[in-house]
């Protein structure tokens, strides 16, 4: 198939970016979206140009590296998948496809379609963990965890940290990401002790990184490749309110 690509090109973090047009010719419909870009890049390299840079690694939807906004929607409008799982058969001959980086102030562009998502790492470092030293763990079956809690926690734990939630949000809010990690750990008994500290610290770091606020439009859950529900945001709000009150009145 033959397509027209409108691709964001930006040579470095401080350079001015712009949309450039490329013709993608003779693309097999079985190819994946990233393989289509591979083919286009091979052509660019042969003609002496600089290939289109984009993040990608596992190409099976789990590492969270790939991060393209396809026609304005992170990971494309197909639900429950990452960019690397988009296949060309979903497009039609002659289509024009817009390819842009995930956009947010907290995700500055590094080059072309590559953005810096290290803000997510710093949010996890602020409190997205259970502080247990290697070797100090009790016997694994010592704390029974009901299947329902285990499953709910798991649903939140499936987050791959891709940042689509931020990219889709009109406010570039990271609430789904933070809510997912807080829910994963707060639901489990192992994570109860640090619950208040966790939500307060993570939310403060999230704010400091310059993410926006949730206005409950749920674009995030619509594009989440793991289909994490915005219920985790509700839970984060609840846990935060409780933690803030306890912090205000505690000795």
């Amino acid at each position, binding site marked *: 198939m033959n397509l027209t690509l*409108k691709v*964001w090109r930006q040579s470095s973090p401080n350079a001015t970016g712009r*949309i450039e047009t490329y013709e993608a010719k003779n693309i097999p419909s079985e190819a994946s979206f990233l393989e289509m870009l591979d083919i286009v890049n091979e052509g660019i390299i042969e003609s002496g140009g600089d290939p289109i840079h984009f993040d990608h690694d596992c190409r099976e939807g789990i590492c969270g590296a790939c991060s393209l*906004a396809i*026609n*304005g*929607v992170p990971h494309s*409008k197909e639900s429950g998948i990452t960019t690397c799982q988009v296949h060309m058969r979903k497009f039609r001959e002659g289509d024009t496809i*817009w390819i*842009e980086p995930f*956009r*947010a*102030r*907290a995700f500055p562009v590094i080059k072309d379609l590559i953005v810096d998502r290290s803000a997510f790492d710093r949010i996890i470092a602020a409190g997205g963990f259970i502080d247990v030293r290697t070797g100090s763990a009790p016997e694994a079956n010592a704390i029974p965890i009901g299947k329902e809690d285990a499953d709910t926690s798991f649903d939140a734990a499936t987050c791959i940290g891709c940042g689509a939630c931020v990219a*889709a*949000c*009109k*406010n*570039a*809010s990271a609430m789904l990401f933070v809510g997912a990690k807080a829910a994963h750990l707060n639901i489990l008994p192992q994570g109860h002790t640090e619950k208040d500290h966790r939500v307060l610290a993570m*939310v*403060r770091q*999230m*704010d400091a990184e*310059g*993410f*926006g*606020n*949730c*206005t*409950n*439009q*749920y*674009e995030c859950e*619509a*594009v989440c490749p793991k289909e994490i*529900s*915005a*219920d985790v*945001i*509700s*839970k*984060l*709000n*609840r*846990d*935060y*309110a409780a933690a*803030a009150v306890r*912090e*205000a009145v505690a000795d």
Partner: protein
Amino acid sequence: MNSLGKTLLRFWNSSIGKKLIVAITGLMLVGFLLGHMAGNLLIFQGREDLNDYAEFLHHMLHGWGIWFARIGILGAFVLHIVATVSLVQQNRAARDSRYSCDATVQAPTSSRIMIWSGLTVIAFVIFHIFHFTVRLDPDLAAMKDPSDPARHDVYGMVIAGFQNPLVVLFYIVAISLLCSHLSHGIASVFQTLGLRTVKTRVAIRNLGLGIAVLLWIGFLSIPFLVAVGALEEPATPAAASAPVIEAAKS
């Protein structure tokens, strides 16, 4: 600053803290709107009931009640606006670049125009207060209840107030935007308070829509019915008097 003060300041400065303030003040304002609408609907009971109700509001707690209510509502209103404007500024800054190809997957329009519907409501509220509370129009201010010339004729004022088609049009637009604001806002209150879960999700959405529709019908039924002439003509200031209902005064 003491440590409680610090905590409160931190709360205000945090994204979720500010949203909680928006949610709680929003909830108060929704409560006010429901009460206001219920009172307005007394117009369909006739002049006497509505004017009794208005008189009751002005005299409860020896006249202090209405001022407590007004200050409370104004406080909530101002906090709601200040917090929201601050959040919107942060949100604009957080998304400093736009997609060349912009797309929305599931966010309803009402949720995307919150700031515009909100600002319209502010303008409307100011107009509405000068229109029916302060009564800048001397004709409206001078209206007296035909059955008790000592008291103001709210009933007559409403009907007179809606004689101007431009005023009616503004009310329709503003109330529609207010209800659009509420259709997203009410459900959002539950999300921000952390009460939206997998079990309550659908009920909360429907509750938000339901209240918005109810308020839309309730508020707009009055200008609509006045415009089509379904309510009595306004009484003139010189109209004959009627016995005063003491019960309403006490």
